[in-house]
């Protein structure tokens, strides 16, 4: 049923249909409305046997889900920014324990200075932790990714935490038409969680054991293997999803005009819509530009990215974060994925801390790169003149 809803509602609605057993909540802007909507559903008795709990911190919320997941429950939480960083010790631990917790991260900048607005600095910090991470462009995509996240996370070949990233405010608070799923569809796609192992007195097992040097590395190898298997399992889930709903999200990275493009622009998240619009316009003007929409960030889809970028003479990455002391994190990944190719490479960090990215800025950056007016390497987008005080 198509309805105009806000992003946070599209998530809460989807979470409900996934029938989680335990939800742990803690407020942080712009995520709060997700857990508030779930709280309302719980309070009205719409969440079945689900236990909804308000934690004392994001650290506590994530820890509650570690216990719940280990005991065999389907678990969900949402957070962002400072909350995600506070959760990080727990989430990395959950990955090591192979607990399929699903998290929606409403991407928000990091402090200092404090900012409640959108960029991708928060999720990038968890890049190396063993969580599956995808980014969505629209609220329909966000809505659909929740059942997909549970399905993949709980897949016995995967068993990993799954983080769905959606841009804070830009998606969470945007009104968009969303074809809201119904229970029957989600039930037919997502069976109840059947953990391969879980805490039970019927078969007492030890979780979170301590590993001396003679066996630690093997655990980490299995974590890497699970991540790499997730590449295929995510694709399979997308195909199943398309059969049931008619919506195919295009896999890990979706190329447009990449076959003959001289310049391919790489984008991730909600900015992609505007980038696509500009690329389409330039195409109409006969300019050979293309788009690569990156959807999966971890595991990183090297094959898809290489394939989409193999013919490009120039690559331009729009970044929403910076790895301070180097360049933008997406650019780092893309460059490493195309090892051996020798295109010109450009990256621009735009919209940090929710700075508006006007269409003209995108037009100018792509146009300048296309026409060879920009130096290769990492740049910041529009920055005001200011005086840096160095003492």
């Amino acid at each position: 049923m198509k309805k105009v809803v806000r992003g946070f509602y599209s998530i809460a609605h989807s979470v409900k249909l996934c029938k989680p057993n335990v939800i742990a909540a803690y407020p942080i802007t712009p995520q709060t409305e997700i857990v508030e909507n779930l709280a309302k559903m719980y309070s009205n008795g719409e969440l079945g046997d689900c236990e909804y709990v308000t934690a004392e911190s994001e650290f506590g919320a994530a820890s509650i889900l570690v216990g719940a997941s280990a005991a065999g429950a389907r678990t969900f939480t949402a957070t962002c920014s400072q909350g995600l960083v506070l959760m990080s010790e727990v989430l990395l631990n959950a990955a090591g324990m192979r607990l399929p917790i699903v998290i929606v991260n409403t991407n928000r900048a990091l402090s200092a200075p404090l900012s409640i607005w959108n960029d991708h600095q928060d999720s990038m910090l968890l890049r190396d932790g063993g969580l599956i991470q995808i980014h969505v462009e629209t609220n329909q995509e966000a809505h659909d990714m929740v059942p997909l996240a549970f399905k993949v996370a709980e897949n016995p070949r995967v068993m990993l935490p799954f983080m769905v990233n959606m841009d804070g405010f830009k998606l969470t608070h945007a009104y968009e038409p969303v074809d809201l799923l119904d229970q029957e569809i989600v039930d037919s796609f997502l069976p109840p969680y059947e953990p391969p192992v879980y805490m039970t007195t019927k078969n007492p097992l030890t979780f979170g054991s301590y590993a001396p040097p003679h066996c630690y590395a093997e655990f980490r190898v299995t974590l890497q293997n699970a991540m790499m298997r997730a590449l295929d399992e995510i694709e399979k889930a997308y195909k199943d999803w398309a059969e049931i709903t008619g919506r195919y999200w295009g896999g890990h990275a979706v190329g447009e005009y990449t076959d003959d493009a001289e310049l391919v622009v790489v984008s991730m998240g909600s900015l992609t819509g505007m980038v696509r619009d500009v690329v389409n316009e330039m195409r109409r003007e006969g300019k050979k530009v293309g788009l690569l929409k990156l959807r999966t960030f971890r595991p990183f889809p090297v094959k898809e990215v290489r394939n989409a970028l193999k013919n490009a003479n120039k690559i331009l990455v729009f970044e929403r974060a910076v790895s301070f002391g180097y360049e933008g994190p997406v650019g780092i990944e893309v460059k490493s994925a195309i090892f051996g190719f020798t295109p010109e490479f450009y990256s621009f960090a735009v919209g940090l801390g929710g700075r508006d990215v006007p269409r003209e800025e995108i037009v100018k950056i792509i146009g300048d790169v296309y026409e060879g007016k920009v130096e290769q390497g990492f740049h910041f987008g529009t920055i005001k003149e200011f005086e840096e005080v160095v003492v």
Partner: protein
Amino acid sequence: MSFFGPGHGACPGCGLTIATRNVLEALEGKCFVSNSTGCLEIVSSQYERSAWGVPYIHSLFENAAAVAAGIELALKALKRTDEGKVVVFAGDGATADIGIGPLSGMLDRNHDVIYICLDNEAYQNTGNQQSGLTPTGSNTTTMPAGELMPGKTGRKKDMISIAVGHGIPYVATATVAFYADLRRKVKKAAEIEGAKYIQIHTPCVTGWGIDGKQTLESARLAFETALYPIIEYENGELTKVRKIKDRKPVEEYLRIQRRFRHLFKHPKGQEIIRILQKIADDNAAKFNLDV
């Protein structure tokens, strides 16, 4: 299979393992264990050598209470509460310092969890560093007795009042010196719905500098000097205290432990001993410990 051990690597005379075995036996192994990082975890949960005969999880140093809350919620949601009780084993550092936030959350929400604080009065797993539950005057590696400093200068944190302040139905102290009392308290806690906090005094052979044979003796002296009152609160009311016959001066407890030895020659030692004696006297008065 036993509930705990054989196969753990604890020191001979370790107070933690005595307490743990008694708790698990009191619960007849019908429990889920959430354990914080620390000595107990390290000596018992090595991969392929787990000493645990009950479902066990170790997540982090500071989140055992929250993990336990999650297990409890999962059992409720999955209608499996009849499988057993949820029990936390956490060190004094994990409890009173780094994990006090998650502990407070768990107590505040009144989860049906038995929280056992294994109080060996310092970060012992990492080699005897000062915690909030380290007693005044104790020599630790992060506040060693030196020319100037006489060891810890602050007080032992009053976790019992903090637990009682959360309005939970059951709070108690116990000691490895009195097994029967410890088991009775655990059994009683298991009968009560809601959050339970039991702090067990568990001597540490290496950290305290005692002989493996002196574990029970030192625990008993802590009680007999009134430095470690053995008390019980139900619904916020003090309902039971273990009385002391012929209360001993604190020196008798201090003298047998290396961590307090400096007090007998340090320029500030006598002052610290006076402070400790006052703490003991105040305990005796507050809880009416003397017979």
